[in-house]
């Protein structure tokens, strides 16, 4: 019961902040709402029994990626509202329509899945965290999923070099 309450409050906050991220005019406020969103998602991970992933989320996402975004926003220094004029080629209503269609489709899949298996959709961590969660995740990472792990590190290396090359003033 307590878990359900916690889950619904967290879900409300996450969705609320997400809407704010997408709809705020000021870019810096948008980024700040994104940070708050990520922090609440990390809390959700703790509720779902993944404390290691929650810490990683805060460390990498909220503490690293969004700082990058904040840096870029400030360097670009968007003081004037960028949505100044409407481009005649842009079809805003079509975009909205497509998004609603995707939502309906997902909803249909979800209800279909619910009627088939009979398990509730929203499961706020029924059995609680597994013992030694970090250890088990680490074990899996290094044994069964070693190759994806190595490939991910190569990907990060390539991305680092690429970002530095792209952002240098003279090559």
């Amino acid at each position, binding site marked *: 019961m307590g878990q359900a309450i916690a889950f619904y409050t967290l879900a409300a906050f996450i969705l609320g902040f997400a809407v704010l991220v997408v709809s705020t005019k000021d870019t*810096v*406020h948008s980024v*700040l709402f994104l*940070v708050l969103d990520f*922090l609440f998602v990390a809390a959700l991970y703790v509720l779902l029994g993944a*404390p*290691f992933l*929650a*810490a*990683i989320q*805060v*460390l990498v996402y*909220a*503490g*690293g990626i969004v*700082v990058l975004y*904040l*840096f870029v926003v*400030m*360097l670009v220094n968007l003081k004037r509202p960028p949505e100044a004029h409407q481009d005649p080629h842009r079809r805003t209503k079509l975009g909205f329509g497509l998004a609603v269609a995707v939502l309906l489709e997902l909803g249909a899949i979800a209800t279909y899945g619910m009627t088939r298996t009979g398990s509730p959709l929203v499961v706020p961590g029924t059995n609680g965290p597994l013992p*030694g*969660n*970090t250890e088990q995740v680490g074990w899996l990472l290094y044994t069964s999923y070693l190759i994806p792990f190595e490939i991910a590190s190569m990907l990060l290396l390539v991305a680092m070099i690429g970002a530095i090359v792209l952002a240098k003033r003279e090559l």
Partner: protein
Amino acid sequence: MIDQFVIPLLKIVVVLNATLLGVTYMVLLERKVIAWAQSRLGPMRVGPYGILQPVADAVKLMIKEDITPVRADKWVFTAAPIISMVPALIVYAVIPFGPTIHLFGRPVSLYIADVNVGLLYIVSVASVGVYGIILAGYASNSKYPLLASLRASAQLISYEVAVTLTLVSVILMARSLSMVSIVNAQYNAGVWFAFVQPVAFVIFFIGGLAETNRAPFDLPEAEQELTGGFHTEYSGMRFALFFLAEYANMIVVSSVATTLFFGGWLRPFPNVAALHFLDVVPSWMWFLVKSFVFLYIFIWVRATLPRYRYDQLMRIGWKLLIPLAIANLVVTGIVKVLIG
């Protein structure tokens, strides 16, 4: 019921009060120690030997006029010092001051929470602390604080990498992420990790100096640089909050260094029975003494070394400390595999 809510609440109250008191007296301690290093006496007028100086400072800062720049972003301007202070305080939830002792017939553990990923929690909270600085510079809506805050935050995130890598080598030694287990591992090994991992400790300490914007890496807040850095436009209580946040960060780094590298609450040579007479000193007292030594070293370094230029600072962080930390990690890994 009592054990679940009342005792942790009491612990939180005690820890928070002790921290805030410690932080305000750190100001006095720093001024005194730097003064003695420079052959003068420091604050002597307020109270006997200047003991009441922090009270005077607090009163002064609280009655100062609270100025907000005209076109600054009001919410962000107010929130930035808070965002700076909160991470420094919530780290105390996982720092262990001592093992489980018996108070009033009840086993009380001298730490607020023993999270399974305690060390990772500390690092992630530290990375959130960068926001306070960035937002402070941005919200001031003027050129100099913005540039200074960008430089300061770049410094912080660079040294975060080096510090995190040294922490990984400590985790390798202790085989666990929880802070209490790390201290217990030092007890079982019979030796403090600082002697087994001296390179990691040195890198951690230097990184800690840079992370808290302390000398010799205090370019962001030096008065001669960029007219006062990222807190130029702050006055009164908000300025006080920034400074308190910096000192609180210092105490956090000292406590973490004590726990990870110097045995937390263990007395020297905990396994040697011949030194049992040292047990009369309670465990949390050992912890406080060791943290205090580190705080003193922080102030000592500030009084002694000149300031680094920004490019020298970044060069040290990226080209010197990170390769050293990685090398240390690799060597630790190899030794662990060979010796087990």
